[in-house]
């Protein structure tokens, strides 16, 4: 059973929330829709849930038109960002709500409803809480009640809006693993919306990256991290930072060095963006080797060393990240100028509208560490 979303468009006075969005969700898949606020991810969720209608486009489930179905009959479970638990009902009444409001022909017997509520509460590990009111629960417990309530109607698609958005950092991290396991055991097709990269990358089978109403990239967390499709994807997922590079012919010019790029069709591009990730800025083994970087500041954070660097002629600092071990091995005594290499670079050529015409990821020729993207050759001025 698959959900085929094609060419969805949604506009609110003057603001395009969804711009030609197409996406296929496989059976039992756990998909994250990731993007900053205003990227259209919540609009997509609301349309799937039936709380909003698109201006154009279609949503099919096994060939059946989902948009023609009223939200009541859509069989889509939605977990709201703030849970939207009914405050005047107990936990059990909340969970039973979807079954109790069915037309009487389809309504299960009272005993059956009771059994299924008990079953669901056991699954979300809230057995003893059936008679509490939502106000008497912690944030994480409320979230699980909301999940149980959405699952009670046996939905064929489960939607979660910022599932951890309203929780404390610690609870959030704990619940992530729990929800991933929960999905694995239930196997229900699920889609969740989040603005938190870690959350999306850590939990989802596949990530849909959205920006300004468009899908920037769809892929597994690894794919997006390794091969970001757009400068936005690179910045948002891989913490890519801009370098002042230029492409001339089949060559990348950067800090007076030149790198050959094979088959890069970005010559008549409007703009070329070169990105480097903090972890791809590596320390040279010999001082004086590689690119000169002025160390602005240094922070030691739980096993990693984070530094702000001014590389060569740049006047904006970029961030680098090393392990404590590498830092201890390579830094000179009290030097504030160090040598660095770039281990990987992403290059994007885009047109005026920001569409990517060509991209290349430059990796080191062999995997031994640390190896710079090379061979570098100094160009005589």
């Amino acid at each position, binding site marked *: 059973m698959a959900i085929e979303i094609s060419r969805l468009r949604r506009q609110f006075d003057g603001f395009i929330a969804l711009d030609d969005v197409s996406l296929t969700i496989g059976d039992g898949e756990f998909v994250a829709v990731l993007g900053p606020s205003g990227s259209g991810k919540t609009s997509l969720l609301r349309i799937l849930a*039936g*709380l*909003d*209608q698109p201006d154009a486009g279609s949503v099919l489930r096994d060939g059946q038109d989902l948009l023609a179905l*009223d*939200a009541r009959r859509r069989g889509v479970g939605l977990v709201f960002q703030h849970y939207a638990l009914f405050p005047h009902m107990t936990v059990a009444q909340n969970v039973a709500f979807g079954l109790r409001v069915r037309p009487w022909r389809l309504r299960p017997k009272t005993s059956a409803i009771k059994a299924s509520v008990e079953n669901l509460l056991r699954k979300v590990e809230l057995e003893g809480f059936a008679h509490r009111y939502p106000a008497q629960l912690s944030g994480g417990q409320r979230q699980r009640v909301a999940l149980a309530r959405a699952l009670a109607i046996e939905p064929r698609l489960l939607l979660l809006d910022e599932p951890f958005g309203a929780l404390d950092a610690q609870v959030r991290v704990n619940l992530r693993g729990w929800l991933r396991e929960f999905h694995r055991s239930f196997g229900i097709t699920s889609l969740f919306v989040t603005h938190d990269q870690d959350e999306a990358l850590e939990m989802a089978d596949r990530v849909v990256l959205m920006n300004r109403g468009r899908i920037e990239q769809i892929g597994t967390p690894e794919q997006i991290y390794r091969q970001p499709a757009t400068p936005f994807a690179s910045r948002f997922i891989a913490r890519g930072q801009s370098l002042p590079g230029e492409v001339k012919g089949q060559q990348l010019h950067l800090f007076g060095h030149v790198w050959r790029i094979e088959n890069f069709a970005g010559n008549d591009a409007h703009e070329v963006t070169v990105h480097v990730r903090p972890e791809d800025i590596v320390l040279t083994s010999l001082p004086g080797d590689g690119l000169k970087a002025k160390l602005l500041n240094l922070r030691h954070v739980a096993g990693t060393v984070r530094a702000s660097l001014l590389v060569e002629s740049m006047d904006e600092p970029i961030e680098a990240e090393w392990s404590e071990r590498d830092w201890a091995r390579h830094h000179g005594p009290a030097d504030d100028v160090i040598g660095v290499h770039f281990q990987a670079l992403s290059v994007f050529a885009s047109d005026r509208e920001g569409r990517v015409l060509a991209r290349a990821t430059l990796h080191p020729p062999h995997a031994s560490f640390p190896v710079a993207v090379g061979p570098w050759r100094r160009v005589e001025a």
Partner: protein
Amino acid sequence: MGGGALMAAVAAVVSMGRPTWSMRVARVVLVLAALAVLGWLLVLPLLAIFAEAFRQGVAFYLDAIRQPDTLAAVRLTLTVAAIAVPLNMVFGLAAAWSMTHFEFRGKSLLAALIDLPFSISPVVAGMMLILVYGKDGWLGSWLEAHNVQVIFALPGLVLATVLVTLPFVARELIPLMQAQGSEQEEAALTLGAGGWQIFFRVTLPRVRWALLYGVLLCNARAMGEFGAVYVVSGHLRGITNTLPLQVDQLYQENFSAAFAVASLLALLTVLTLGIKRFVEWRHGGELNANT
């Protein structure tokens, strides 16, 4: 409204997604029903006042409100309001300052007492004052010995008005100041401001629109109070008759004249509501604690 129409109306009010044709119809029905209620219950009586006031012509109207007794009533009403409203304004500010910046025993009892006059019948309020300040009241002989007349005189009218309008300002200020907290006042304190400086430079500017709002409602009620004032005034024509009492007496004698005087009060009401709406519209954010 029949059962089916009611269901359709209910269906309309909680509709989601694409509104259907029948839901739109039900919406219109609901709005019209509400307009009918408001028109019948509120607009008609308001119109009736002015219609009755001008029934015998403009000349008669002007003549009626220029009667010496009526002018005396206007003066008395203004005098009572001029004393009672500032008293209540100060009371509201003091009560709000005390209730929101300090913790002390009996605070919730104090809050209940401040609200109490709202739920007491004005007639009972007036009667209570007579029991204390009247000739046979608790303080009656003491007041007589010192030659102070409270009941059937101006002080009684003021007391009754203050009692009935007591919660108006305090009730506007307390929730607002509670929501704003004491942080800014404490910041001013650490910066070296004195108590009055904190009050005039920090607190007052933050609550000024809520204060105006409360004073406005307090004033409308003060000028229009009938039951409590009726009991304590003795309604001596030209001496202890406020405008509402004058309306009452004229009503027994000269219908149209009563409405002419009533129209003055109605005009005050409309004006009050107009200014109130304006304040809500321009300064709504400073009135309400949760916006």
